[in-house]
């Protein structure tokens, strides 16, 4: 499924310092019943975001008018748990294009890139700086630069570089996905399949 190309993103950010935010929180299982990929943003963080009577919880960060932006900044071990790609869809559909954390769960990281979200892993110290900067000024802007692989706090110019492999970077910058790549090597795969013993 096509997604927006990612190059340079400048935006304010939404802070969510909780550690171990798991995909059951990002999108609870009962919202996985769709057969199409749409509308998941409405249920992003459903049980943290809404009361049982569907009224918004005023103290949850997505319901606070102070915070907005295309960058979600999460605590350590973000996206652990279930492999549901719906978690990444919900984040994308809500309008986030980048998630920053000091540590990501493997499958979440994979899924994010596959749907066009850039996961940026920073040092625990830099993560603290980002949280502090947002606390001081909720409108403070971050710049996430994929070509140079850097993330910068624009107010102070403090910056850190992040890792991403060249292949994934190429895909994200061009809006390609793995399937486009694999379909181009169909014959090679067919020949390989012949060699499998089962």
């Amino acid at each position: 499924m096509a997604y927006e190309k990612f190059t340079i993103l400048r935006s304010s950010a939404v802070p969510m310092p909780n550690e171990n935010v798991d995909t059951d929180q990002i999108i609870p299982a009962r919202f996985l019943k769709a057969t199409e990929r749409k509308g998941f943003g409405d249920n992003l963080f459903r049980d943290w975001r809404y009361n049982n009577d569907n009224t918004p919880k005023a103290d949850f960060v997505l319901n606070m008018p102070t915070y907005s932006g295309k960058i979600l900044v999460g605590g350590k071990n973000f996206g652990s748990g279930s492999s549901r790609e719906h978690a990444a869809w919900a984040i994308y559909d809500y309008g986030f294009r980048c998630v920053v954390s000091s540590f990501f769960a493997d499958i979440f990281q994979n899924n994010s890139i596959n749907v066009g979200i850039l996961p940026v892993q920073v040092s625990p110290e830099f993560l603290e700086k980002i949280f502090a900067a947002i606390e001081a000024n909720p409108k403070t802007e971050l710049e996430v630069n994929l070509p140079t692989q850097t993330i910068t706090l624009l107010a102070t110019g403090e910056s850190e570089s992040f890792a991403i492999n060249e292949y994934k970077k190429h895909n994200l910058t061009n809006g390609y996905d793995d399937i486009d790549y694999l379909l181009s090597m169909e014959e090679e795969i067919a020949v390989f399949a012949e060699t499998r013993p089962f």
Partner: protein
Amino acid sequence: MSTPQTLFDKVWDAHVVRHVKDGPDVLFIDRHFIHEVTSPVAFLGLEGRGAPVMFSGRTFATADHNTPTLNQHLPVADLLSANQLAALERNAAKHNISHWGLGHIKNGIVHVVGPENGITLPGMTIVCGDSHTSTHGAFGAIAFGIGTSEVEMVLATQCIMQPKPKKMRITVNGKAGKGVLSKDVILYIISQTSASGATGYFVEYAGEVFENMSMEGRMTVCNMTIEMGARGGMIAPDQTTLDYLKGRELSPKGEQWDKLVPYWQTLKTDEGATFDLDLTFDAADIEPQITYGTNPGLGTGVTHQIPMADTVKDGSASYKKSLQYMGFAENETMLGKPVDFVFLGSCTNGRIEDFRAFASIVKGRQKADNITAWLVPGSHVVEKQIKDEGILDILTQAGFELRQPGCSACLAMNEDKIPAGKYAVSTSNRNFEGRQGPGARTLLASPLVAAAAAVTGVVTDPRGLMDNV
């Protein structure tokens, strides 16, 4: 002499179609399982591209996540669930994929029916849009969960693109003590490594404890490997593995079997091969386990107290939030805590051995009045075994009912939801906030600990109830 290799290296390297420069490996996938929840959007994507399924014979479909566990002969009442089930059936038929839907004699939880029918074999790569695909690693396969984009990828090209993970070996020496099941071994390991301690790794299990384990027990261990953040876990195939596989419906037969056995015997870590991380534990340190927090790493021996916040690795703010959700406090004793629900089932503990263990405790006793128990076999095959072995009679006499196979309260997508604020001792794999229903509080444990809670109504050390068996 060639360099010594690990089991993981041997299986991985045999599946690399191409190394992408500065990128992931293109990995050929031998078996692909699909279910109703994570496949519909993949099929839509496939249609959007106009791509066919490349090898329909390598994909197997079963309905499990969303299915009711009562009255399966009636139409599924929940419309959205019914839609997903219908989509799976339609997509499977259209693309010529074998489909064991609701009501089919072979239907059940994907990670139970795969091994049980001989679809899972040593040396394979196996993926499914479900993180507990790691279960199949018990057979010496590389098996892991994937996202929906990757499901589409496998349907279209039978490959996925993955960077090769780091390697970890976890050795547990010695013999498991009384009342200590495979579930306790893995819960103990996760409590020692934390819920993120193995992120980026693929784990191989070694040592006497795993060598002595049945295939069911090994599946429980590999199943929960994902709960420490690992991509998956595997155990080298041995005679136990071959005995389990021989004669299963889709296992290789005759000449093909004879040819594969010598190959399978090479699937073990060579002497001198190295791991990025090597951990060793002693079975003597493991007692029946129970979790008290909201991730599977927050567990301890059932006779222990809840640790103080300043002693846990995971950061004390989230730890305290976790205890608050559970309604627990630091230093409280787990024994005697009231329980409302007991869930026996899931791809972690929904196999025949788990029902045998549960029955060994409830035999001759009665279900406690305050307990609602959901006993859900992992498949129809397990259900039949329960009946044939007389376990159903034991359960019924003790006041329990058996439900029909499916994922059920493991992820509470169907109507089997634990109500808000209630405590469930559950043999499944995740105790996250709301995993078993909004506001539900989950204590993960083995089938023995679950049975002990079911007959006493509180958290109980099963060892005290084992003398009569």
